[in-house]
């Protein structure tokens, strides 16, 4: 299983990659913004994407819209501080599969990953 982790915070990417490793995912590719993620996505194959919302260059919502516009159906989890109802609805309408609000603890992150990770 191969996962694309997108966040402009390198520390947050480390946290998510550690959690992925803990549930058995060894192949993780990191991107620091939506634009970089899109470039990587177009040249590689992934089984799951975890993306932040607020990022420079291209935000997470735009990334999800672009990926869905390409016809990709892989699961995408939005991991973000943006938790207001309207934003959650916008993310789901854009094609997000699930939503995890920061702050989160390891159990909450693993519960989300368990839904989508098949190692």
């Amino acid at each position, binding site marked *: 299983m191969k996962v694309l982790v997108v966040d*402009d*915070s*390198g*520390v*947050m990417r*480390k*946290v998510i990659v*550690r959690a992925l490793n803990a549930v058995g995912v060894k192949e993780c590719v990191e991107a620091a913004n939506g634009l970089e993620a899109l470039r990587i996505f177009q040249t590689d194959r992934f089984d799951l994407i975890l993306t932040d919302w*607020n*990022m*420079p260059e291209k935000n997470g919502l735009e990334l999800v819209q672009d990926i869905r516009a390409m016809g990709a159906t892989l699961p995408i989890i939005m991991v*973000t*501080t*943006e*938790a*207001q109802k*309207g934003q959650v609805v916008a993310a789901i309408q854009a094609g997000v599969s699930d939503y995890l*609000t*920061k*702050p*989160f*603890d390891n159990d909450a992150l693993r519960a989300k990953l368990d839904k989508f990770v098949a190692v």
Partner: protein
Amino acid sequence: MSTILESEIQSVYLPSFIASTKAIFKTMLGLEITIQAFDKADEFQPGHDVTGIIGLAGSIEGTIVVSLEKEVAFAAAETFIGERPTTINGDILDLVGELANMIGGGAKDRLNIPGVILGLPTTVSGKDYKISFKPDVEIETVQFKSPSGSFTVQIAMRQPA
């Protein structure tokens, strides 16, 4: 430009930022924190080693400044990424920026005011600087204590015209 009434920033905004800060430290860092003191000032002079700054724009305007003693930042990094830095490195700056982001995001969620946009965080290392605000901005500082040391969360708010 209208200034937020003191009672509004203290009674509406401040509790959301305090609750957000406590939730983040407890949930993500496993740290119970307590409030040491409240302070008012017309400019921010950081007393701590590393600082994260993030803006709120849209239906409200504000700046959130989170300043940590380095030992608090090191302890947070150890919990967060499993490595304890010994200097203020890129991971520490990144972490403090993310803390400011999460505190702002959590407060925004609790305030539940439509049309508020969270900016991207900026981080500063060192103490030799000041952050000045316009005269119509009200500033509140909350000093927190954690098991690893002290930190402050400062909010500067005004309502757009």
